[in-house]
Each structure stands twice: as C-alpha cells, then as structure tokens.
C-alpha cells in the first residue's frame, strides 16, 4: 500500500500533524509563535549545510534548528526585546541559508521543495524518519506534560514544586527542532509554524482542558493534511500550502461558530 505516493504523502502529513499538535499548543500558550518561525527559517541553512557536506538533511536541519533555538534562549533578555531579536535572527538565518544554497552550484537544488515542502515526493525512508521523529516529539512532550504545563502557567510555581522551568524549556526546544526537521519535507520551512499554530489555535474554542486542546489540534491537523492533499490532487495545487489553507479555513469556520460564546474567555 506504501507504493502509492498519495498514501505515503497522507501518512507523512498525518505524522507531522500529530507531532505539531501538542507542541503547537505550547507554542500558542507560551506565545512562542515567532520563536517557532525563527527556528524553522534557520533550518534552510541546515539544509544547505547538509547538501554541502553530503549528510542527512534531517540531521542538518535539526542541528541548525537546535543551535538557533538555543541561541535565542541564551540571548533573550539581554538588551533587545524578544520580537526584535527573533526578527533579526529569523530573517538572517533565512537569508544566509538562501545564499549558502546558491553556492552549491554543483548540485541542482529545487529550492522550492525546501521552502514549501515536497510532500508528494516522500519516500518510504522519509516516512520512517517523519514517524520516528513524530513519535519522539509526542513521547517527549507526553513525558514532561504536567511539568511543562506548570512551567507555562507560572515560573515561580514551577520552582516551588521542585521543577526547573529552564530545563522544561529545553525539552520544548528539542521537540521544536525535531518537528522542524521532520516537517521540512511536508510543508517546507516557511509554513512549518503554520502547522504548529493554526490547528492549536483552531482547537482552543472547542476545548475545556489542555489535553483536550492538544487532542483536538491533532485531529484538525490530520484532517487538514488529508483534505489538503485531496484538494491538491483535485485542483493541481501545491500540496504543502493546500494543507495549510485547509487548516486556516477550519480555524476561521470554528471561530465563526464559536463567536457567540466568546464571552467565556
């Protein structure tokens, strides 16, 4: 059944949706949307390095994403406001990445594939990497779930319960780097943050607990992946952006449905 490229693409999309859902909730709750974007943009530099050094793109992208995320965490609170810092780092990383790719003249690279994903070209081994990464992310976040929630609610509260919020932040950073690395093939570096944020934000109105929100976000992400791919096939549109479009439409629809109860916030 994995011989069919549509099946492989669907499985890849659903895998990324599952990894992105719980992580995306934390990105939304902790207001890390731009942080996710910066980390994802840095991954294009990782792609260029991987191609130059002829190593696995997954490893290269994850490595650079991790370095980027750590750098941001280290520099935070040292002079510049967080959004300024992220603005500088995110766009610099993207620009350096694009310049680095242009140096690789020997190899013909389809840049669009890394910027917007190339989900229809997912191979069996890609699928293995994507699902392996997704399971890692879900396990990691599941293991730290309560601690991460406590640290998200209040730093002092976490310290008083014997947790170290900085350590919990590190777990999120690692999960983010893995997610970015596995999602490149599916939606590309420019739209990874969308897969993190949109399903989680869409799930907010339907959920009464954090767990429910993560679960509903996973469902919305998976539906977007499946429907987006079908749409892309039907209308001959680019697959990655089509997936994000479906997620955005679901977000808008759910928000309009819940407009009357907005007071509950």
């Amino acid at each position: 059944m994995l011989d069919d490229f549509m099946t492989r693409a669907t499985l890849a999309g659903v895998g990324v949706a599952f990894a992105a859902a719980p992580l995306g909730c934390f990105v939304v709750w902790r207001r890390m949307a731009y942080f996710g974007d910066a980390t994802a943009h840095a991954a294009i530099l990782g792609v260029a390095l991987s191609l130059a050094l002829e190593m696995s793109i997954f490893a290269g992208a994850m490595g650079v994403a991790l370095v980027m995320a750590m750098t941001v965490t280290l520099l935070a609170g040292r002079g510049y406001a967080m959004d300024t810092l992220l603005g500088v780092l995110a766009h610099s990383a993207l620009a350096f990445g694009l310049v680095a790719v242009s140096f690789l003249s020997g190899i013909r690279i389809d840049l669009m594939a890394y910027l917007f994903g190339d989900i229809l070209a997912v191979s069996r081994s890609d699928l293995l990497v994507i699902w392996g990464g997704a399971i890692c992310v879900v396990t990691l976040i599941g293991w730290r779930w309560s601690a991460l929630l406590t640290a998200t609610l209040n730093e002092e509260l976490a310290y008083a319960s014997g947790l170290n919020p900085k350590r919990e932040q590190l777990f999120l950073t690692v999960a983010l780097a893995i997610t970015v690395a596995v999602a490149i093939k599916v939606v590309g570096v420019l739209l990874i943050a969308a897969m993190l944020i949109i399903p989680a934000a869409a799930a907010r109105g339907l959920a009464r607990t954090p767990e429910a929100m993560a679960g509903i976000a996973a469902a919305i992400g998976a539906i977007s992946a499946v429907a987006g791919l079908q749409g892309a096939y039907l209308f001959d549109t680019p697959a990655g952006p089509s997936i994000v479009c479906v997620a955005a439409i679901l977000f808008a629809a759910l928000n309009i449905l819940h407009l009357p109860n907005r007071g509950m916030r």
Partner: protein
Amino acid sequence: MSLISIQNLNIAYGGNEVLRNVSLHLDPGEIVTIVGPNGSGKTSLLRAIIGATRPVSGSVTLKPRLCIGYVPQRLHIDPTLPITVERFMRLTQGVTRAQCRTALETAGVPDLLKRQMSNLSGGQFQRVMLAHALINRPEVLLLDEATQGLDQPGSAAFYQQIEQVRQDTGCAILMISHELHVVMSASDRVICLNGHVCCEGTPAVVASAPEYRALFGTGTGGALALYRHDHDHHHDHDHHHGHGHTSPNSNDKTTEAAE
C-alpha cells in the same frame, strides 16, 4: 530546627544590588510577614527561597524534604490555555479528586471543581491558588502579595482564611504584603525589608520602630498606638515612598487623628 533559615544573603541583578546581608528564619507554625516598599527585594527574597534566584553570597537552608506551598503574586493564565480548576489542581502528580475537594474546602471555595480558571473572580482565583498550594499538606506556605487586586473586605477575608489554615493544618506561613493594617494583626512577627532588614519583631514593636516609620509614615499603624513622628531621626536611605517625614503637616497626621 527552623524550617527556613537564611544567612547573610546577598542578591544582585547585573551589578544592581537588591538584597544586602539579609538573615532571617521561619519556625514551625509561625506567621511571619515581610513588609517593604516597592523594589525593596521582597519578591527576590521569596524567589531565593524557592530556588528561582541564585544568591551572590550567603545561604538559604531549607529543612530537608521541606514541602512548600506557594501562592504567586499574580498568575496570568493566557486566554488561549483552557484549564479547569480540577485540572489545575491536579497538575501535581498523584493528586486525587477527593484531595482537590478537601483543599478547595479548606481554602473556602468548594464547588469550583468544574469551572474554567479564566472565569473565576479575583477572590475565587486567589483561593484556588491557596487550595493548590495546600494540596500537598505543606509545612510552609509562601504568599507573594497574594491579595493584590482584591478589594479591602476581600483581602481581609483572605487573610482570615490564612489564619484559619494555620490553625487547621499547623503550617508555617511566610508572606509578603503591603496591606500593613490587615496583615500586622495576623502576624506573629513582622520583618521590615528595604534592601536589608530594617527592623523586625512583633507587629507592635515594628510599627513603632523609627525605621518602619521612616518607610511607611505614621498613618499605617492601624489600631496601634498614636505615634508622633520623630524628626531627629535620620535614616540612611532614599525613600521614594508616598508617606515620609518630608511633610509633617501631610495626611499622615489627619489619618492619625481619625484613628
């Protein structure tokens, strides 16, 4: 043995000294209040106790395996984070629903279990925070301006609840507050902090100490004895505080007269 014992604590943020040579202790079952103007290092002191701030020098010694309940200053829950009171209370591993009920009853807010945290009133919210702090039967309760945002009857009721909690559970309480008139009567000891320990003792002793007067003026003594400000007194700090000795004919006197 003291539950918390702090020796010669110094804390600085990037060369900016916040606490200088602070020593204090908290014994089982006592209620100690730390008062001090804004920026006097009260919150830094609590952060040092829970291990969130590393001291430059000095030591914070907790009784081994000390269970601490913490009520933060103001907890902002992001509106994008849905969470019920029950789920919040059960963030600590192994807490049962029955334990949640008991803790909420102790804190004076039964029946909130299914409510969204974001829908609670200020008073309910702080009581849920208190219940959350109580759930592990702590030996020490730390409160950081826990009544901020409550009106006066609300905070008076809150502090009554705190005293009730001490009676019921016997836990020691260390709290920060600027609502002196409410807090002072409920405390066994008061520590007046302004970068260093200005003065400490029973509420009556502290309220009549010149250092305390210099920081808070004379109007905040509540039901305590009328006090004439001593203008010979020189305190070696800058006090950017509303009440001070600069205006002898200010409201302070009128407040005193009213009392």
